[in-house]
């Protein structure tokens, strides 16, 4: 079976673009979560036409296709559950930068930072800034509607997508949107594909809106709070103020404890948490704006505030932020990073919930995230080899999502549902909403060939953590391993692994 498929794929793509060795299958079995599952074959299409060919083979043999960009996803979205891993990195050309219309047309496999740098060199600006920009692809960003710190001011990837070229499961090459920022000609199909996590079609080309560069002067506001209620109030007050910053990030006291060695003098010891904001403005306006924002923080009870325009002082703040990830990783090997997002007025209450969950389940829970968007990233630091701890972690995660939903929030702000969060979907969405989503999926992909097993809760296992295999609606033929293939044992490997 596999042999026939591999042969057909090689006939249409060429031998270099179809790989099925154990080493290739292992190295395309994961994303940035700890989930992994071997694909049967890995393909690297170089054109829209080749994507169509792959889908034709997939249809003929009813083999599932799992689109993948750079595999930096944090929800298991590109983890293949057998079948064909369709890797888009070879479609990495910037097709056009149209300065007059301020837009770029790119292939889906273009690396985000490559686009950012290329347009910057032409005096333009592509705002979405996921932390993974140097690695992630534009296609992956579109499929997850990726955000970043500056989304607070500039919005997420979707705001910049003007049009798409998408290959549907039946081979149709669909063009959505166009070249204009305003467009009400029929349904907004572009937005339907944004955040669709590779379940509705393969994005092959993206037309993106560009902006003029932000003003050149950079300032940093850092404000510390003695209690989380005050910190939560400050988030709301900063977001509502006319001088609102360009980004609005938070770190709680558990994070500050981890990077105590890097704590800048601007943050007094022992505070409950701090807000770190970037402010971009014109040089002559920066100082005034920083002062106004300092006032806002003081008004809601900050215990220390500094508006920094000095480059060295700012560097200390962001160096502390950068030191956080490695410092956290040193505590324990497993990091479970959630993406719960709540309306901003609910942040103080949600932070209180998180503190209670931390104590209830005795887990090492830290919060650092895009506070201005209500997009908190509760992170649990644990050790997957400790079964007792992991069962408490699982309980804590269940509680985090329950609390998040109870506060009017949502499962994911920017990482998507993928495999990790699908089992919470029925709790997050009314049955009618989920049903319409299913009908849309069936309309675009009646044979359930594209990224099956993702997003929808069908067949999701109860415990996605550590060591349990993922079973899902991949009711597709299990493609037999190649004769020489010993690597198949990897299929029994931790599917429901940890999340990164």
């Amino acid at each position, binding site marked *: 079976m596999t042999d026939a498929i591999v042969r057909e794929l090689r006939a249409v793509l060429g031998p270099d673009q179809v790989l099925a060795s154990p080493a*290739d299958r292992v*190295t395309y079995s994961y994303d940035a979560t700890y989930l992994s599952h071997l694909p049967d074959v890995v393909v*690297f299409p170089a054109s829209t036409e080749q994507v169509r060919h792959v889908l034709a083979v997939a249809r003929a043999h009813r083999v599932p296709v799992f689109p993948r960009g750079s595999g*930096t996803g944090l929800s298991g979205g590109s983890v293949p559950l057998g079948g064909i891993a369709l890797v888009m990195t070879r479609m990495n050309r910037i097709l056009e930068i149209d300065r007059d219309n301020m837009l770029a047309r790119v292939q889906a496999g273009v690396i985000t930072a490559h686009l950012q740098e290329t347009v910057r060199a032409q005096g333009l600006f592509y705002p979405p800034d996921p932390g993974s920009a140097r690695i992630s692809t534009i296609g992956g960003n579109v499929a997850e509607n990726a955000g970043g710190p500056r989304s607070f001011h500039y919005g997420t990837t979707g705001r910049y997508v003007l049009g798409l070229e998408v290959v549907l499961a039946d081979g149709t090459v669909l063009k959505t949107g166009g070249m204009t920022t305003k467009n009400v000609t029929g349904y907004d199909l572009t937005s339907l594909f944004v955040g669709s996590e590779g379940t509705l079609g393969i994005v092959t080309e993206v037309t993106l809106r560009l902006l003029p560069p932000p003003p050149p002067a950079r300032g940093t506001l850092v404000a510390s709070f003695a209690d989380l209620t005050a910190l939560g109030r400050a988030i709301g007050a900063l977001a509502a103020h006319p001088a609102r910053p360009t980004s609005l990030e938070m770190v709680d006291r558990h994070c500050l404890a981890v990077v105590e060695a890097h704590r800048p003098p601007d943050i007094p010891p022992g505070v409950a948490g701090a807000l770190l904001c970037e402010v971009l403005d014109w040089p002559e306006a920066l100082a005034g704006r920083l002062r106004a924002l300092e006032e806002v923080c003081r008004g809601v009870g900050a215990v220390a505030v500094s508006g920094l325009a000095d480059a060295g002082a700012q560097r200390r703040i962001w160096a502390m932020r950068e030191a956080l990830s*490695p410092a956290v*990783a040193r505590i324990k090997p497993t990091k479970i990073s959630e993406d719960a997002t709540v309306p901003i007025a609910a942040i103080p209450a949600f932070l209180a919930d998180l503190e209670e969950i931390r104590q209830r389940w005795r887990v090492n829970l830290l919060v650092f995230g895009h506070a201005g968007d209500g997009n908190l990233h509760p992170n649990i630091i644990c050790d997957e080899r400790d079964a007792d701890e992991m069962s408490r972690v699982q309980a804590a995660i269940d509680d985090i999502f329950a609390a998040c939903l109870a506060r009017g929030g949502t499962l994911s702000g920017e990482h998507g549902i993928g495999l990790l969060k699908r089992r919470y979907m029925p709790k997050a969405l009314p049955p009618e909403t989920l049903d319409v989503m299913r009908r849309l999926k069936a309309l675009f992909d009646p044979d359930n060939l594209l990224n099956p097993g993702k997003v929808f809760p069908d067949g999701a296992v109860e415990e996605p953590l550590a060591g349990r295999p993922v079973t899902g609606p991949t009711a597709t033929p299990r493609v037999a391993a190649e004769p020489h293939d010993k690597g198949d044992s990897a299929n029994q*490997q931790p599917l429901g692994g940890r999340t*990164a």
Partner: protein
Amino acid sequence: MRAVEPPRNVAVGDPHHTVTAIGLAAAQGEAARCIHCGFCLPACPTYQVLGLEKHSPRGRIQLVKAWAEGRVDADEGLIEALDLCLGCRACETACPVDVRYGVILEAARDELAQRRAGQPANILLKLALRHVAAYPRRLGLAARLAARFLHSAAGRQLEMLAARRPGSWLAAALTFARALPSPRGRLEAARPSSSGGRLPGSAAAPGTTAPGRSRPRAALFAGCAQAGLFPQVNAATASLLAAAGFQLEVPAGQVCCGALHRHHGDPEHARALLRRNLQAFGLLRGEPAEVIVFNAGGCLAWIKEAASLFPAGTPEHAAARQLGVLAKDVAEVLVERGWTPGDAVQGGQRRSLRVVYQPSCHLTHVCGVTDAPLRLLRSLPGVTVALPSDGGTCCGSAGIYNALHPQVSAAVLERKMAAIAALGGGPPDVIVTSNPGCHLQMLAGVRQAGLAGQVAVMQLPEFIAWYLARPRGPLPPAA
């Protein structure tokens, strides 16, 4: 995709592999710390050139982990992935959670080396490393023989064959062979004299003054490739150290550092060499110099990690650790001494020189020496210094990687030359490196990019000494 012929018939051993638990266990433990984030992907030259996850640090780590856990075998794909790693360690600097990739790679390569120990190619490599590479004189002789062969009738025929197949293994291999210098007659100058003492031609560089302070003892590590192929670099290093007021020694009895042996699965020989160096540099007697100066980033990096060859608690282990502490890069030593070559230059008009500094990967990623070389170069009046636009990633030399995998090495080098061209303003006057392997590679790169006769390639001490000797003179001789 750039097609790389996978090595054939290399899968060896029992397919149900009996993993030597101890070695791979270390790799497995470290690999478990990798969070799959992919931050190392853009830093990895082989991923950038080959575009496949198995040629990325994340991919290699996951492969080794799968191997250690018995999920894959050491088959062609895994072996190819590990063989094609440059070992440049750029991934370690890029990793946000400090995964020590070097530990993983070394353990996996040791395991592979054991399995491949009986294969003719590996026996040959081991012999070549033991009996040629470690000896400056034999290395120089081999380089001269290679040059003579290339000029012979047979050599010219090979060249013609290669010209018809651009991008082939042969064409790539010849690119590197042609770059080999043949330092006829200069060998004696470079070898540590049997009695120890000063290198000929190592008088203090003209126009410099030694600071009027105490004169600490500095022992020079002469190296094998450095001494055999680029003896002038050792002479220049000695002259700079003398100018900075050090009492220089070149201990007799010193030998190759053993890095190549260690990285190619011959730890026994590496251990024997290290023991001899511990002896030669007075570490076993407890009378080492105050600083042991290296001018090859690759050797220095290995020496800093080499104590692991001896069991903890042994005198050798303690001595090797002390060696690791005393061992320093020449630029670091000069900067710490407070000696700035620019200060030694008298005023007056100087011609402007555009220098590209291509650092040694191991100097950057293992030793963390990044500022000192730039500070020295930038102190020279009229000299503008830039890193290649890629920030100075691996040039593809990587020990003897260019000899073992010439095609991939040539592809990495091509990107490097493009990164230098991307700086704009035409080719630089000089490419300065900090390791003999990089020196060789950049010589090949200059030719490959069609810049022969336009760009000089020098190592850092060599360039500074040259500059101090003739600040107003002509450009250094181009490669």
